[in-house]
């Protein structure tokens, strides 16, 4: 599948992906919305447009502009690649689980107190991400969807476990997953050269690196 046109949609991590697509010469449309809105279920599936965000006219405007850029009426129609960063928003998952000092029994050394089980973590993640996983399922029924996980800033067993759970749910819903832990060099942590000046996102170089991987290892295998 060619990567001439790319429709990037997702949270703030979508920005670097869109910049990467542009650097590779793809005609790129992009619509993003704060991870908080994805987390809270603001974004809904729409049979014609693909996605709509309740009470977020800015997102609707960006979706419309992206469609115009790609000469289509909908995320669901056209010959563009659908690339998304949705499904994760780890900042809304891990900190609450740690707020009362909880560690994960399955990965913590020395039996710290208190801990939660891996089953509990999975159930919590599934409950909090059910809406987004369902979005992916509905999108993936209609067209190919590639999800790019957010870059890892610091690798921990807890972070790895939650990423594994989400990744499994996304692929189970029909998405193709680009798990950046296994794409970025060395230990899968975002290198300084790929780090945005805000310290928590990837930069355009990162986006270009990931999009090259998508083009050469994901789309080429289609």
């Amino acid at each position, binding site marked *: 599948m060619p990567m001439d046109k790319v429709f990037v949609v997702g949270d703030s991590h979508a920005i670097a992906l869109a910049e990467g697509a542009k650097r590779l010469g793809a005609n790129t449309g992009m619509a993003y919305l704060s991870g908080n809105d994805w987390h809270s279920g603001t974004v809904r599936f729409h049979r014609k447009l693909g996605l709509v965000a309740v009470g977020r006219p800015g997102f609707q405007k960006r979706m419309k502009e992206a469609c115009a850029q790609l000469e289509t009426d909908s995320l669901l129609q056209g010959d563009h690649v659908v690339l998304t960063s949705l499904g994760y928003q780890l900042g809304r998952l891990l900190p609450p689980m740690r707020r009362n000092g909880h560690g994960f029994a399955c990965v913590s050394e020395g039996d710290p107190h208190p801990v939660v089980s891996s089953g509990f973590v999975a*159930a919590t993640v599934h409950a909090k991400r059910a809406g987004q996983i369902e979005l992916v399922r509905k999108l993936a029924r209609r067209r190919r969807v590639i999800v790019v996980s957010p870059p890892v800033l610091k690798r921990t067993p807890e972070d790895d476990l939650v990423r594994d759970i989400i990744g499994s749910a996304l692929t189970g819903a029909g998405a193709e997953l680009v798990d950046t832990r296994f794409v970025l060099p060395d230990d899968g942590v975002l290198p300084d050269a790929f780090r945005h000046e805000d310290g928590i996102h990837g930069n355009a170089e990162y986006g270009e690196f990931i999009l090259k991987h998508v083009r050469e290892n994901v789309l080429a295998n289609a």
Partner: protein
Amino acid sequence: MADHPYTSLPPEAFWKTGVAEPGFFGLSHLWRSSFAFDEPPSFATFGSCFAQHFGREVRARGLTWVDAEPAPALTPPDVLRDFHYGVFSARTANIYTGAQFAVWADLARDPESCESIELWPEGDRWRDCLRPLIEPDGFSSADEARAMLRQSARAFRAAVETADVLVFTMGLTEGWEHRDTGQVYALCPGTQAGQFDPDQHVFRNYDYLATRASLERALESLWTINPNLRVLLTVSPVPLVATASGSHVLEAVGYSKATLRAVAGDLAKAFSDVDYFPSYEIIAGAPARSMFFEPDMRSVAKAGVNAVMGHFFGGLGVDLSAISSKSASLETEDGPTDEDLVCEERILESYADG
């Protein structure tokens, strides 16, 4: 006419003036706490299904309920329920018998002794035999199962250390043990988890002496942890789901509840820091005319729970008006019903049709 002890008894000492004339809704002075509180006490709650009402109602009235094993922040309600957080003061699951209670008290005394608790493999998952249904799919490894059990034992200990009053609601005299090790089980192996082995697993119907010995052992452990702890014993009015005693289930319920009731009352007389609250009598006694039982004649309706709690908080000796209530609708039909309770014993119902 000569004076005798009955001439000076209060009205509640006579059936006519204490029960027949006032009727159920006129019952008064049914219970007065033997504990005196300078300040509103904090409560830890453990026991059978019915024990869950005490925790909920303590919280609803703005009193302190000790949650020694809280879930992480912002856990979805369904997950909280599925993983038994906030049900009891630690994630012990239901503790139905005195024997189970004694095991938990021992574990609280020495959480490292969790190493000796039997684990049940189930495919690539693991369950501990004290609370085999505490997690829907069990644990991912034996190590994880042990770590989580140790944590719950520590939490049970923390609840005992923290609480002013521990409410233990006794539910059953019937249980199962390992023939050789004496390991006490929460459920008959094979009914919902584990595998039943007639050569290893034996039925016990703990009699008065055995139940009393277990409770005394538990009390000794609890007071070793917190010498100031006061223990309030109650007996669940909820009948057994099933009996393995060989008797008709109705007769088995009579034996079980009578035994538990006698032990609780005698312990309350024997120890100044033990009291008995008559949940059983309020719901199952003749004055209620079984009106608080649902059509299955087993589950207790919300109105019955309200009646129990009315007597409980009315006799507690604490001025609740000074405490901000978190619920204004306790006397309505709304709120948690028996269906909302977490009751492992109910699994036995599925075997009723053979």
